[in-house]
């Protein structure tokens, strides 16, 4: 795409930023207006002669979350307007707004015709929903950061729309997506690593070449009020499967479908061979000798008989966590939690290796 072409932009905001109303208008349906609206006026000013806000889409955050028709309607408008770039938000730390921006950007990018950029506070839940696929400019947590965020969004958005090559996330000013590119370095890795260590021990600033995306912090669920009457389940990431591994769960780097529920088959303990451990990251001899060393069925059945708790769920849920990418394991965990909840399980014991 020639760089002198005027970039055609569609802007997505929520109903609040479009001036339609506050939280009480959260169910406002997806609406289209020609040209810029609300923060789009600043967006247009920043684009100057390089781009044009062809139209604005806005929607209540509840409507976007609850009504699949809202996203479909947004995509229809975008198809019709054929923009080079979608700018969504910025959503700052508004969670549902952030999720709407994330979903629309993902859908538009998946279409393959239009570039997409958004802006959010790094802890907005919309970030984890799309950070690997979508370029997100980090913003402050409130709309007070609009003036600071939009110039960065415009700069990055124009580059994306023109298909220009981007440098590292820190230099371009977007949240790292966990993507690494090959590049030639002047100094070999060993020397760079030693230089980094020396800087670290001297307390001097240094930049790691590997950015770690980090883990979620999940608010702890409330404690069980006693164990009497409770249904307990065993869940594990230790790769415990029936003999022959019927679901072919791999010993490392599982995918999102590599988990299943397996019945204890009415047993009160687990003899050798009742289940096997296919974990590829440790010596499985001891657990294969006695699977209770992982699943503790003998102890749990005894405690169930003694009435310490009401009922052990007859199936355990299992995957293999060895080398599992965090975003994959997160999905496996969510699917397992859904399964356990549907079975009326109130507490889970999760032996992990």
């Amino acid at each position: 795409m020639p760089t002198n072409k005027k970039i055609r932009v569609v802007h997505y905001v929520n109903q609040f930023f479009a001036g339609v109303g506050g939280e009480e208008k959260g169910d406002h349906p997806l609406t289209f207006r020609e040209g810029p609206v609300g923060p789009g006026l600043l967006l247009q000013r920043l684009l100057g002669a390089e781009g044009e806000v062809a139209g604005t889409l806005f929607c209540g955050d509840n409507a976007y979350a609850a009504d699949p028709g809202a996203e479909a309607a947004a995509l229809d408008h975008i198809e019709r307007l054929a923009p080079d770039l979608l700018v969504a938000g910025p959503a700052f730390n508004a969670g549902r707004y952030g999720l709407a921006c994330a979903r629309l950007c993902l859908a538009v990018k998946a279409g393959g015709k239009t570039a997409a950029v958004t802006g959010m506070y790094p802890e907005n839940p919309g970030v984890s929903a799309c950070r690997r696929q979508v370029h997100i400019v980090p913003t402050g947590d409130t709309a007070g950061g609009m003036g600071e965020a939009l110039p960065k969004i415009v700069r990055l958005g124009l580059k994306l729309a023109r298909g220009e090559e981007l440098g590292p996330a820190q230099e371009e000013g977007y949240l790292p997506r966990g993507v690494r590119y090959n590049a030639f370095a002047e100094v070999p890795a060993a020397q760079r690593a030693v230089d980094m260590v020396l800087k670290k021990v001297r307390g001097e600033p240094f930049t790691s070449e590997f950015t770690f995306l980090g883990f979620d912090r999940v608010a702890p669920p409330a404690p069980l009020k006693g164990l009497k009457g409770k249904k307990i389940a065993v869940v594990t990431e230790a790769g415990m499967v029936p003999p022959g591994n019927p679901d072919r769960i791999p010993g490392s780097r599982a995918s999102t479908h590599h988990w299943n529920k397996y019945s204890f088959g009415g047993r009160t303990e687990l003899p050798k061979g009742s289940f096997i451990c296919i974990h590829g990251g440790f010596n499985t001899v001891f657990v294969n000798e006695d699977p209770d060393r992982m699943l503790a069925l003998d102890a749990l059945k005894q405690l169930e008989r003694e009435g310490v708790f009401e009922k052990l769920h007859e199936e355990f849920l299992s995957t293999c966590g060895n080398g599992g990418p965090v975003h994959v394991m997160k999905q496996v965990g969510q699917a397992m939690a859904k399964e356990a909840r549907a079975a009326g399980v109130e507490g889970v014991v999760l032996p992990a290796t």
Partner: protein
Amino acid sequence: MLVTCLPDVAKDVGANRILKTRAGHFHHPFGDPSRPEASERRWRLEATKKALEVLTEPVTEPTVFEY
């Protein structure tokens, strides 16, 4: 709640209720093959009881209990 012999990893990834079994092993948190069978079973029963109790503990952040 999560039973493991590597509580630092569990804490890093944000598990909130963690039981470290001291006699257990990375390869088998509910096993201690160094004991005779009957003794290992008794130990596992107590470790499992402790695991269940951890479910009833109020916590506000990743917290390690030990047995």
